[in-house]
């Protein structure tokens, strides 16, 4: 067994198996779901870290499940971007798991409705671990039909998590989310069918190598792109996101905004990476325009919100735009473009999750999240407010955070390629982000003593996990070479 671990390639499959196992166990141990849940998260984290270490030390590779080579069998692929996403999920996921433990305990302690909160926690752990496994599977998969299956797993578990809070608004939001997700999945599946019809293979690499602009392939790309854009909530398709993300439980919001969105986008990126040289300027520009509108519109909406969690949710809509404006830049510098966008993804993931966790803590402590009534909450929850502010800094792209590095890379690409309208979009996005984040932060960090009295009811682990995540977002401002080294490992 140990020999197997040391020599084999099973590292690749462990980040998928372990959370699956954890999910089953936490489902079975319904009296104590937290124990297997947190344990599963911890083990998965270490497995992911080990995978990253293995990748850096031994290079990337493929893993043929069941020993069947493609096109017959399914293969997993480990290269820089895939493993980086797995690692990002591990870091954010571990913090969210630690947070969730404290969150449910605090809720169970706080109110009279123990049964309801117990039931919520009982469902949370299996759903979350299944989601984690599905995300890892999605990142590592090299088979387009397998991607569809993982997409569905992700969609169903996200919907389940969204509906978990039981609030009427969350039920409606979950219903809408589910329908949009199913539409996206089916569109994706039809695209997969088209691709299979033309290429007779489901292996993404084989397809990518033989790609042409035949009508069927064009239709396949359109279907797949639209399906994934729906799931990523790119601008015209963003309508479902804010209510779903804002009305969920705090750890769930963090998971949805920090991880799930990135999952669908990652597949989009993988598909487009191959076709980009073929499609020419127009399609990439179209994506970038949608991204630009998303940045501006999302930021404007975020500014208009009265509730903290809605603000953060709309900020996700805006930040998604950045994931798409990279495509025109990638035509001239694919490697630099990929590096920039992945840097953005990981720092956004940490920062956004930290902000949602912090917002959830504030909500639990104060009992509401109306921004204008949050003055003085710093006195009660200093670490949480600091985490929120730090996450906000990263979104604004100010040093010393990962967001700054990402913005720097974006801007330097745009400037050196002389795409001035993109420069304008990036700058406008940063300014708008600064406006809406400062609006929220000015309230929660305000020195005014309109104190939200009352004893601290939230668990320490909630404060610390959000802070740790925000500090990771900050740390990303200093470990650029390391991350880029990881991204550049070939498959």
């Amino acid at each position, binding site marked *: 067994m140990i020999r197997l671990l040391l020599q084999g390639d099973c590292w690749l499959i462990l980040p998928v198996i372990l959370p699956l196992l954890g999910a089953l166990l936490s489902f079975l141990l319904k009296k104590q779901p937290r124990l297997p849940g947190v344990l599963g998260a911890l083990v998965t984290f270490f497995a992911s870290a080990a995978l990253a270490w293995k990748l850096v030390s031994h290079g990337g590779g493929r893993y043929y499940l069941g020993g069947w080579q493609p096109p017959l069998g399914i293969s997993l692929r480990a290269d820089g971007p895939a493993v980086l996403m797995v690692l990002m999920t591990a870091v954010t996921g571990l913090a969210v798991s630690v947070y969730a433990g404290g969150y449910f305990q605090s809720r169970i302690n706080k109110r009279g409705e123990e049964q309801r909160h117990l039931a919520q926690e009982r469902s949370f752990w299996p759903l979350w671990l299944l989601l984690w496994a599905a995300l890892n599977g999605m990142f590592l998969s090299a088979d387009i039909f397998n991607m569809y299956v993982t997409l569905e797993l992700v969609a169903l578990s996200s919907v389940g998590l969204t509906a978990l809070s039981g609030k009427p608004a969350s039920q409606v939001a979950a219903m809408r989310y589910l329908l949009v997700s199913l539409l996206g999945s089916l569109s994706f599946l039809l695209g997969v069918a088209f691709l299979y019809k033309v290429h007779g293979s489901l292996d993404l690499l084989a397809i990518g190598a033989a790609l042409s602009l035949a009508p069927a392939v064009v239709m396949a790309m359109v279907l797949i792109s639209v399906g994934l854009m729906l799931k990523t909530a790119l601008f015209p398709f963003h309508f479902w996101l804010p209510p779903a993300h804002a009305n969920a439980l705090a750890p769930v919001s963090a998971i949805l905004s920090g991880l799930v969105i990135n999952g669908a986008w990652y597949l989009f990126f993988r598909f487009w990476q191959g076709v980009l040289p073929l499609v020419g300027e127009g399609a990439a520009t179209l994506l970038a325009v949608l991204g630009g509108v998303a940045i501006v519109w999302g930021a404007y909406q975020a500014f208009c919100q009265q509730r903290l969690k809605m603000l953060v949710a709309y900020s996700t809509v805006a930040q998604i735009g950045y994931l798409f404006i990279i495509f025109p830049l990638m035509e001239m510098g694919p490697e630099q473009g990929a590096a920039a966008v992945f840097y953005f993804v990981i720092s956004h993931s940490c920062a956004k999750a930290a902000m949602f966790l912090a917002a959830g803590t504030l909500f639990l402590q104060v009992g509401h999240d109306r921004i204008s009534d949050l003055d003085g909450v*710093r006195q009660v929850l200093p670490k949480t407010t600091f985490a929120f502010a730090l996450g906000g800094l990263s979104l604004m792209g100010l040093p010393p955070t990962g967001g700054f590095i990402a913005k*720097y890379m974006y801007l330097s690409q745009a400037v050196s390629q002389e795409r001035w309208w993109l420069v304008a979009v990036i700058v406008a996005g940063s300014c708008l982000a600064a406006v809406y984040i*400062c609006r929220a932060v*000015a309230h929660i960090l*305000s020195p*005014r003593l309109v104190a939200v009295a009352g004893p601290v009811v939230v668990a320490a682990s909630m404060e610390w996990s959000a802070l740790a995540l925000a500090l990771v977002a900050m740390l990303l401002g*200093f470990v650029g*070479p390391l991350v*880029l080294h990881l991204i550049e490992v070939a498959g």
Partner: protein
Amino acid sequence: MIWHDWLLVMILLSSLGPGLIIFSLAESSRASRTTLNIFGAVTKMVLVLVMILGIYRGHSFAVHFTILPGLELVLRADPLSALFVTLSSILWLFTTLYAIAYLEDSPNRSHFFGYFSLCVTVTIGIALAGNLLTFLFFFEMLTLSTYPLVVHRGTAEAMAAGKVYLVYTLAGGILLFIGVVWLHAMAGPVDFSRPGLLTPLVAGHGTTLKIIFYLLLAGVGVKAALFPLHGWLPRAMVAPAPVSALLHAVAVVKAGAFGIIRIVLDVYGLDTARTLGLLLPLMLLSSITIMYGSVRALSQDNLKRRLAFSTVSQVSYIALGISIGSPLAIMGGMVHLVHQGLMKITLFFCAGNIAETLGIHDISRMNGVGRRLPVTMAAFTLAAMGMIGLPPMAGFVSKWYLGLGALAQGQGWIVWVLVLSSLLNGAYFLPILYGAWFKEQEGEWPADSGTVGSLESHWMLIVPPVITAVVSLLVGLLANSSLSPLAWVRFIVRTGYGL
């Protein structure tokens, strides 16, 4: 990396460490907070002293840290950064002492001193920045660490001022960011130790370089309160007095002025800047700012607002000196970085004392203050005289060199600007002095907090302004000695820029 490279990091950590610990301290643990503050400030001064000695002996200190391939954060101590570091660390010590007494019994002190230390750390980072990226890095952080100090009082007015401050500085920060990225895209990373990097680009990309220069200038100009971008400064006066002192003398405005020096001398280089015709606009802009600030100061009745407009005017002497571009003028500008800091911090300390002890904020109520607060007003008078530029005070030295430099460069009109501005300085400072010393007290003081023993106020409120006032007198009197700022500036101009 050998030990003395770590020195620069230690200098940063000497205030960052205490700052972070102070954040986590309880509000009531006053003794440990004070100890930490003073310990940090003194340690920093000692470390800076070691560094200066090293530089004087010809050591070079540099720390490199790669944050992206081909992109480094560099801390480097050259003579110019030593000047700013010394100024900041000395003034920080006094400001800390002053703030401890000033904020006694007010709420949120842990928060305040935490950000206070952070702010100084970042300022030192700006001073030690060895390339443009590092400068940008710390420059943006300065905005964030000073904002909580500006809004510290938490009143509606303070929050509004904080909003204005953020809008100005963040917008400036973004302009600076674009400029830096653009310059990097054209010329690669811009290291301060390699002047003339841009010279080969002048022929082909002259216009672009000009645009970038104005972007950078606008970016740092916001913090330096250059004329159309100065709007935040008078409003930020709602902050507590130590914060104003810090903003005006140690950190923000100074960082902006320092940035102008760096951009002109180290990024573009004098020759390139002159070839591109960038110096004349800067000269005009700073002359306008000098006059504008002085004129506006005349009509202010609030003491701190008058001082703020005075800062707008005085800081532009630095930019003026650089833009004139002759060695003497550059010396005058650079030395004013120190002189203005010393004098202005004294003035703000005194204004704070007057407000804290007597509850007076307006100049019209200051009649007869000299008799109630003789020591404070003496310090105030010294500093104000210096500001006006009476010989042999510090301000005179700066203006003298500026004038000589302008004449050497054939820009005689600058002398008129200097004379006129000195007259205006006199016009807004002398009435204060006259009223305070020679007029009778009118009615009760608004809120007299009483004397402390035989002293007019708490000793920690009196000692810092007295020391800074005396120092500002001495640097003028002993300007020719080998230990004066002027001598150091001469050293900078000779060794650093070979002028």
